[in-house]
């Protein structure tokens, strides 16, 4: 399990979103725990993830609280 802020480009599964406020934000934008996401751009700078037709830019301060796991 890694932090989204640390991972390289590739496919990942969202394992947990730690802070509650951040979880709410991501849920409202349509990203859930258990989702498979694709990291299009990794840190430094905001991370860009994609799920289906939704692409979201996430600042480091939020990405640090998103735990993900690599999928192949």
């Amino acid at each position, binding site marked *: 399990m890694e932090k989204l802020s640390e991972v390289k480009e590739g496919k990942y599964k969202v394992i947990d979103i730690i802070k509650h406020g951040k979880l709410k934000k*991501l849920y409202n934008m349509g990203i859930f725990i258990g989702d498979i996401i694709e990291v299009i751009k990794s840190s430094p700078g905001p991370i860009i993830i994609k799920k289906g037709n939704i692409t979201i830019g996430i600042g480091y301060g939020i990405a640090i609280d998103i735990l993900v796991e690599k999928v192949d």
Partner: protein
Amino acid sequence: MEEKIIAIAGNPNTGKTTIFNSLTETRQQVGNWPGVTVEKKEGYYIYKGIKFNLIDLPGTYTLTGESEDQKIAIDFLTQNKVDVLVIVANALQLERSLYFLILLSELQKNIIVDLNMVDLAEGEGIEYDIEHLEKLLKVKFVKTIGNKNIGIEDLKEEIYKKCKEPISEYFKFNYGDEIEKAINESGNIIEKLNPPYPVRFFALKILEKDEYFINYLRDRTDYETINNLILNLEKNYSKPIERVLIEKRYGVIHGVVKEATIEKKKELKLHITEKFDKILTDNFLGPLIFLIIMFIIFNFVFLFGNPFVNFLELILDKLKFVFLSINLPLWLTSLINDGIISGVGSVLLFIPNIFLFFFLFSILEDTGYMARAAIVADRLMHKIGLHGKSAIPMILGFGCNVPAIMGTRILENRRDKILTSFSTPFMSCSARLPVYLLFTGIFFRENQGIIVFSLYLLGIFVGILSIKIFGSIFFKGGSSPLIIELPPFRMPYWKSVLIESWIRTKSFLRKAGTIIFLGTLILWFLSYFPNPNNYGTELNFIGKIGKFISPLFRFSGFDFWQAGIALIFGIYAKELVVGTFGTVFGIENLQDTIRNYFTPISAYSFMIMSLLYMPCLATFLVLKKEIGIRWAFASLFWSLFVGWLFSTIFYQFFSFLKGG
């Protein structure tokens, strides 16, 4: 004429603005929602003899009382008679739009879903069985392609029909026995308070732990009973109940969308968006492209705008000439020419640039580049204490502060919007350039470029300083971390872009025009009386004021009344600083006279003052409009203060160095 009220809601990036523009065209007004900095757009159209008044609600993903713009949407929908609520949905992201629909359904309105961008979805091989969606969700669906103006007439017809119907059955989401029971039980308590919101909606907000609604409850009744209900539920589900609610909603939506999707043969899909995103936000290429685009915008706004500005100037001059040649009383000629035409004209001259600026701004937004730019700028802006989106208005401030501050509307967060607007006036706009050119041309001929550049840097420095100081005093906590949706790249709809630019330019004109006119009259009066023959000199009130304030600049090196008047006129517009020196020193020997009054050190000190204090009346008015009168005055006084402080420090320091 019969009138109906139609509210338009939707997630960001659903093409809501385009739909709104297509329906209302130029019959629009932009203002602010009372008491807040959130923009309010209204418009109307007439269809089959009925006037439909449209209200554009802020674009949001959810509906909570905790955020300013969402609270506005909730209040508007619950406290007004809304005949039809149109929810603009993005066919590419139908699930999220339907989620929003479920939230809004609880407000028990007559709803139509405008399924927009169906062409993009079809391009991805997705089509929806509309009838099936309508049956499952009990709302009317209309397909549109906003940026091609397709389906707009259907939408008008459906809105018309819906107005004729009484509220039909609305979709009531079932959260399962256990939660429904909790909703009912808390509903019973809430009902007794007689709140201005539907009881079930209120109860759901409480379960979602919406701070606003919880506080509302706490102030009026015992919250503990309901809180225990929630705690019990959470024990059973072993996770926060608001998460359960969201998951349940999405669970159902997921099923609905799956059932209603007609998968077609997928066209060969090229991941163009992804490729573009990688390049546009690349750590090296991203900033480069960003700078190139900013450079292009700059040149476009000013190179293309300036011929129009010059043309307007010519017309104003001709107009002055006309008034000179017809034999009006002298005072009236002066009032018209020196006062009204010069003053109001100084605002009119902004129009070409403002229009072009908004034109390009809308294109950047419509194509989807704006969101990428925010990503690129985020790292740097974060160090300053703002997030990426703030960079765009601030950079454009180097061109003209007025549209730049209007551009802060892309920031949702109140703190970011205020701090960005507040610091933008320190970005040295093009109107300050004539002042620099005059003085550097006289005193710093050899290193004109470096001197001018140093002033730009000083402006940026003071801007950042202001953010740091005011941010830490007035706003707790730092900037909210960036989270921004990157919409798919698409072609802008030119008609909508033009409407958008025109409406904004018009709103600037109307607001600024009236107040500038008043300001003009006052300044003219002060310049003209009591000695009409000596307009704008020390013999008149304005000169006396100039004399009165000049001691303030004793330690800055320019404590003579001519500088005082120039600075006062500079509040109108910074170009007038140069013009005023022309008037009071005389045009013929301007350079020599200035050399008699200024030294290189006091000249630089005067440029610092010109750079830092309120750029123009129009900026002040826009600040008032965007972030409120208190912040506008705060900005005025703060800018006067830092201008004075920095010019004084500079003058004293270098005079000391030279003397020592």
